[in-house]
């Protein structure tokens, strides 16, 4: 984990902040590995918030300093990183790593030491540990909030059977198990299900098996590297004419480098997202413009739709909570966070008792007429058509998947 320390003090306000010690916020976040694409963009957004909050006089009049280490998308490194943040760097506040898999190992650690942990796009990572000082920034809550959209779209177009592929890791297993229960309850018959080890590179065997099973829908739960390999395998081998809907929980298809390299092979996939152009939130346009400029300099994800707005929101929430409680005491902050709703650039955020979103809203989008090697196209409205939830709906699904894909 490269020691990446960003000490940002803007010159003209330095005098005001110089004398008292800085407020240190610690985070381990993937800069490399399968989650690296998203992690780089998220970290950039957090740094933007640190610059903005320091321009406004910092927290409790003290300069904010962000300490970040690269966890390489590897769960084995995060316990070490967070112990170091707490015992060596002695940080005041903690933000969780991006993603369920790196976050899972530190949940027992923060629970035992009674620490506030701001969640960062994990999925149901708190359901066994039940830590009461955990606040997730993701737009989803439990499995229903994520999968009902996908399943209802499928049933509306007459799908009866479903196939599942899921990576054998914390995120994909949580989501897949939830989805299987909901599918059974809503009368869908599972014709094929397969877990694969996270390091799998070649998915042709699995795609061939799906072709043979002839399902109406395929629900995929995968991490970025697998998502890319699956889309490539589908592109090479095809899933057969019966499949009406393909996608659901494919992490990584929201990262700009991935969208750019996959290009037209994305067409027809119906997948989850967090924010796409056309969803109106106060202040998000202005943030995205400022972000695009900074991202170009840092050669990071130029669009910044998926993670950056929600990481910036973490900063906003912390800023409002610290201002309201006038203290950095984690128990006090947690109590305040439980009791209030916070306005952010991704709309109002409040949490249930388990620290997940109280009113989840997970958009399901379908890629339509995406061209190859063109990033700017994704800023237009029509490329990622929102099929669910109703309040953001901007079109109906093109079915079956092979037609929507326009593939061979």
């Amino acid at each position: 984990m490269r020691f990446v320390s960003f000490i940002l003090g803007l010159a003209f306000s330095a005098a005001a902040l110089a004398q008292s010690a800085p407020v240190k916020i610690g985070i381990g976040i993937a800069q490399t590995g399968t989650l690296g694409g998203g992690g780089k963009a998220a970290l950039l957004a957090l740094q933007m918030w640190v610059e903005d909050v320091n321009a406004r006089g910092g927290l409790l009049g003290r300069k904010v300093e962000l300490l970040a280490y690269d966890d390489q998308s590897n769960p084995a490194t995060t316990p070490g990183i967070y112990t170091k943040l707490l015992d060596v760097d002695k940080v005041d506040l903690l933000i969780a790593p991006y993603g369920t898999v790196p976050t899972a190992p530190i949940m027992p650690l923060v629970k035992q030491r009674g620490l506030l942990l701001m969640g960062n796009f994990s999925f149901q990572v708190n359901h066994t540990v039940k830590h009461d000082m955990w606040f997730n920034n993701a737009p989803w809550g439990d499995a229903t909030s994520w999968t009902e959209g996908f399943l209802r779209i499928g049933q509306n177009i007459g799908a009866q059977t479903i196939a599942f592929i899921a990576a054998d890791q914390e995120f994909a297993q949580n989501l897949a198990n939830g989805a299987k229960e909901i599918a059974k309850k809503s009368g869908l018959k599972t014709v094929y299900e397969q877990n694969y080890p996270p390091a799998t590179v070649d998915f042709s065997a699995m795609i061939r098996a799906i072709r043979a099973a002839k399902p109406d829908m395929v629900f995929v739960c995968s991490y970025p590297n697998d998502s890319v390999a699956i889309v490539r395998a589908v592109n090479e081998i095809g899933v057969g004419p019966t499949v009406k809907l393909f996608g659901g929980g494919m992490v990584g298809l929201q990262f700009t480098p991935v969208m750019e390299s996959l290009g037209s092979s994305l067409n027809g996939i119906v997948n989850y997202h967090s924010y796409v152009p056309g969803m109106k939130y106060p202040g998000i346009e202005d943030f995205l413009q400022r972000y695009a400029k900074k991202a170009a300099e840092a050669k990071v994800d130029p669009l910044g739709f998926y993670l950056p707005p929600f990481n910036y929101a973490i900063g906003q929430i912390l800023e409002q909570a610290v201002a309201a409680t006038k203290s950095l005491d984690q128990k006090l902050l947690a109590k305040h966070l439980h009791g209030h709703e916070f306005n952010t650039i991704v709309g109002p955020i409040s949490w249930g008792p388990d620290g997940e979103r109280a009113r989840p809203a997970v958009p399901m989008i379908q890629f339509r007429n995406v061209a190859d090697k063109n990033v700017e196209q994704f800023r237009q409205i029509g490329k990622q058509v929102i099929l669910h939830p109703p309040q953001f709906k901007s079109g109906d699904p093109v079915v079956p998947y092979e037609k929507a894909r326009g593939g061979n």
Partner: protein
Amino acid sequence: MSFELLLEAIVFGVLLGCFYAAVSIGLSVAFGLLDVPHVAHPAIMVLGSYCTYVLGRYGWDPIVAGIALMPLFFLLGVAIYRFYYESFEKRGSDAGVRGLAFFFGLAFIIEVGLILVFGVDQRMVEAAYIGRSLALGEFRIPWRMVVAFGVALALTAGLTIYLSRTFTGRAIKAVAQDEPALRLMGANPVRIKQWAFGIATGVTALAGAMLIVVGPVEPSLDRVYIGRTFAVVVLAGLGSMTGTLAAGLILGISESIVLMQFGASWAPAVAFGLLLVALGIRPQGLFGR
């Protein structure tokens, strides 16, 4: 598992198996013939993949890049053998234990070196034959596997013929069987072994190029290939080149069937299972001396 899925698995297994043979043939020479405990062979192959990736960024086709890298890796091989000979074989003593540790250390240095330069991200290459598949009725066979199969077949056949037909090839086989006798006949076994090790490493560069054609590569990929390459070499029998092809096919097909039937989580154990069985029952392998 339905019949045509089994058939498809076998076809895919043959393509994969031939690729495994090409990946292991360098080790067949280094370990099979020269008795050099070359545990770093897979790491050098992954190094070849990354060099192919770098050349790919300048628009080189992976196969062309692989072939272009062969002379460079030949020199690398000669250098490594020279260093190994000076530090271990010359001193005799328990060179085996120290030699083994040396190559294990070398494998780790290469792996971590790649992580420092390229990070742990997956790297892949673009090419006309990657991403499209050959449609044979119901079957769809990815072109990248067909190309890897072709190059692998050429590589394995080429090296086998080189070793059995050419003069230096026979000298390499001779040094493997009876070094003192060769020394009496005026040939310098060290130079021959150095040449053989150079060729083995050169060939591995092309195998590395095929590795990144077949799928994305990351620095720690060499660990799984230690099992596969040694399984093929031991199953084939030490120093038997033709055996490498047969053993590669056996491994490829069995792995592909297990992949189809039991899923990917059991696949890595196939190579190591075969290796243990081969070591247990016939350490001298199917065709070994």
